[in-house]
């Protein structure tokens, strides 16, 4: 059986294809995850983009579309996927995927481009509680992205730069729009880029942390979503949450899509 999960994020579309591996006498079904696929929809309409992305993902996995038994979608654009049998919230998908990768995960922190959230998960990967900062750009990845643009660094360089700073400079603005002007003034005042980067990532980390606190921080804590690639953010978040260990999946932005594929398999 082959199932697929598609995460229609606000910035990019992620697709994961799973094939179950039947092992005689094994207590649980194991899955083989094909190489995950990501696409930026650009100017395309979401349903068109989803179709094209799915076609490409299947081609790259060497699987024909007809062989996929069930597709489940999630993400901001989840209802625009014509070929999905079901859609679930990012909380459900995130919890499922995170617990699959890290079976002892209890708290899942999902920081995407436009939304940041804290999810409580039980052992079966069910989301039991969540708190999100939807609708305010300051609590998500786009905040860091906008500031890194102002500093003319890639998000990766931005994260690395922040690790080189040991100062804590205050950031007054709590809004992406105002913070951009504040960063520009800091640049004019010759503040080192490293210090600005750290201040920005600390700010996002503290907002994300406050959200996660609403559901309670319980080990093991897993971070998913694109911001995992920013070493600076991971470091800031660890500090803010005051945890020894923050588990990082190998394919952080695909965890929600993985969760969808798993749910598709379970319900097929």
């Amino acid at each position, binding site marked *: 059986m082959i199932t697929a999960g598609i995460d229609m994020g606000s910035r990019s579309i992620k697709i994961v294809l799973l094939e179950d591996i039947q092992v005689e006498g094994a207590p649980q079904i194991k899955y083989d995850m094909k190489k995950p696929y990501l696409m930026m929809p650009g100017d395309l309409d979401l349903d068109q983009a989803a179709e094209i992305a799915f076609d490409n993902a299947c081609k790259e996995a060497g699987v024909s579309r007809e062989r996929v038994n069930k597709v489940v979608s999630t993400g901001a654009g989840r209802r625009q996927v014509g070929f999905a049998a079901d859609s679930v919230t990012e909380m459900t998908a995130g919890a499922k995927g995170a617990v699959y990768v890290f079976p002892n995960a209890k708290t899942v922190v999902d920081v995407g481009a436009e939304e940041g959230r804290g999810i409580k998960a039980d052992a079966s990967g069910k989301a039991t509680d969540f708190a*999100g*900062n*939807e*609708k*305010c*750009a*300051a*609590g998500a990845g786009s905040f860091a992205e906008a500031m890194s643009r102002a500093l003319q660094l890639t998000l990766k360089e931005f994260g690395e730069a922040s690790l080189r700073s040991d100062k804590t400079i*205050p950031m*007054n*603005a*709590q*809004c992406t729009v105002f913070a951009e002007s504040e960063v520009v003034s800091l640049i004019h005042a010759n503040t080192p880029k490293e210090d600005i980067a750290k201040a920005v990532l600390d700010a996002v980390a*503290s*907002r994300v*942390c*406050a959200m996660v*606190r*609403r*559901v*309670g921080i319980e080990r093991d804590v897993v971070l998913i979503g694109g911001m995992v690639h920013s070493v600076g953010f991971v470091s800031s978040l660890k500090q803010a949450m005051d945890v020894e260990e923050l588990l990082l999946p190998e394919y952080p932005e695909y965890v929600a899509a993985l969760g969808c594929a798993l749910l598709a398999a379970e319900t097929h």
Partner: protein
Amino acid sequence: MIANYGYKDGSGEYYIAIDTDQCIQCPVDHACTKVCPKGMFEIITDDYDDNVAAIKQAHRRALAYECTVCKPAGGYARLPCTTACTPGAIKHSW
């Protein structure tokens, strides 16, 4: 005067309202400034020359994040600030 410190953004509305008329003869020796774990309260001389409680500027824009430590998930049954202020001058909007 009722001074509302805080904000509303896409995620919600977060205001701490202080009835400053009650601060003028505070019966608890400005306890609010001592019990807040983040030290968010301060005593200022307002424009009409009264000494009243206020939220420090640095905290006003991050109330949703700062106050989570005292909200139920943080393990508190009641907020330290509103409990300490017996005249009831402090109110949280969320």
